[in-house]
């Protein structure tokens, strides 16, 4: 394959401004009492933490800013939250569910 025309893998870092691509739908599944992320031929069921992160992924905030918001909201150490957020977003980016 021609590497020049090949889009690269997104590596999520502190300065990344992540967003959900328009074709993904984050919805509340009232019938089953949980949040779902609808993707092509996939249904993801993010837990409370993941939903909190995903709602902050607006393409404007950096990962660091997202971490700050969450650290305040959950009164938790930023280090712990940062590691968790990076891990979550990288996993989603590797599946094509997070862009920047």
């Amino acid at each position: 394959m021609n590497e020049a025309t090949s889009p690269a893998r997104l590596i999520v870092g502190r300065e990344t401004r992540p967003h959900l691509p328009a074709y993904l739908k984050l919805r509340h599944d009232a019938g089953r009492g949980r949040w779902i992320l609808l993707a092509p031929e996939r249904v993801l069921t993010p837990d409370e933490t993941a939903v909190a992160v995903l709602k902050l992924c607006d393409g404007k905030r950096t990962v660091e800013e997202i971490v700050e918001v969450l650290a305040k909201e959950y009164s938790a150490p930023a280090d712990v939250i940062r590691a968790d957020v990076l891990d979550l977003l990288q996993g989603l980016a590797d599946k094509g569910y997070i862009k920047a």
Partner: protein
Amino acid sequence: MSEELEPKTIGHCQTAVVDDEPTEGVSGDAQAALCARAPVGLLAELTHRCPLQCSYCSNPIELERVNKELSTEMWCSVMKQAGEMGILQVHLSGGEPTARKDLEDIVSAASEAGLYSNLITAAVTLNRARLEDLVKRGLDHVQISFQDVDAENAERIGAYPGATAKKLDVARWVIELGLPLTINAPIHRQNIHNVPRYIELAVKLGAQRLEVAHVQYYGWAYLNRAALIPTYEDTVKSIEFVERERERLKGVLTIDMVVPDYYAKRPKPCMGGWGKGFMNITPAGKVLPCHAAETIKTLHFDNVQDRPLLDIWLTSDAFNAFRGTAWMKEPCRSCAFREIDFGGCRCQAMTITGDARNTDPACALSPYHGEMVRLAREEAAKPPTPFIYRNPRNAAEAAKAERPLVPAE
């Protein structure tokens, strides 16, 4: 050869596959909660009409006539009911779904019902204006099949001249319109050498997802098995290649793979379990637990014209026939994997052994397994037989076959 299994957890997310292919379904912990009341996926076969005549089609041999197809109102009602009962995704398929002039209305109804809609199309008769309209009405995702990456061979396989150029146009429009694109690659002995080029094509087009879908031998594909089944060696080679590429293309292209179970040791967890996460509606409105279920002649299928969809899901005989594990015979009944693969595919057990309650012969524990593998290897070693193309004339000719194997001594 092991079944491809998606990692079930990404950080704080559970993933469930809602594929239209027969080999995967909802699995993992997500299953219980997601499927308490309704399936997550609905395959709506809007019509059996199709401009292509692919011999690997998994539609039943007996194709449904146009005058038996459900009305626009009925399909729209199905979408509404599906949304209300908690179905999350709908696959609009066929035949060729764009052959229905009212596809626009059905997509609108799906969107209004909150369903995530997938259009599964051959794309040869779709123009840009129509696609734009479908997108405006809320279409979420498009899947386009490519019969091969070599245009000439593709057009021989699909029996449709000029198909490739048209498919490439539609693929580009999908991307331009901001929709995710899946390239569907139906793999068999006559295109298996091109798996690497399918991956190149998908990346070049900017597809989000590629389905390397080794043909599953149902319907027309079963009839054409000797024309389609690859050798064991080629199969393994292509699977290993895909696994390497998947790692390399992480974050660029999602590659889903459906492996041919004839060469497997363990059966596929078909539909993720019968009546567990998936339902299928035929062009005439029959509601099936999987799209090949009509090959089990002892089952009776309810029709959406007669009963509400939720009722059918919860109580119909066909859905309850193989739900759970109580129906199982040995070796499934006492097997440690019975809640993992559910004894494999009921339709394949029916077709090959003559009893839908038998273990899927793809399982090494089935007494029919050795015979099935021997047949597959023998067929693959000989030159391919000519295609029996999927068309109404051949359908009339071919409604015979179905000769069960004898078990091993």
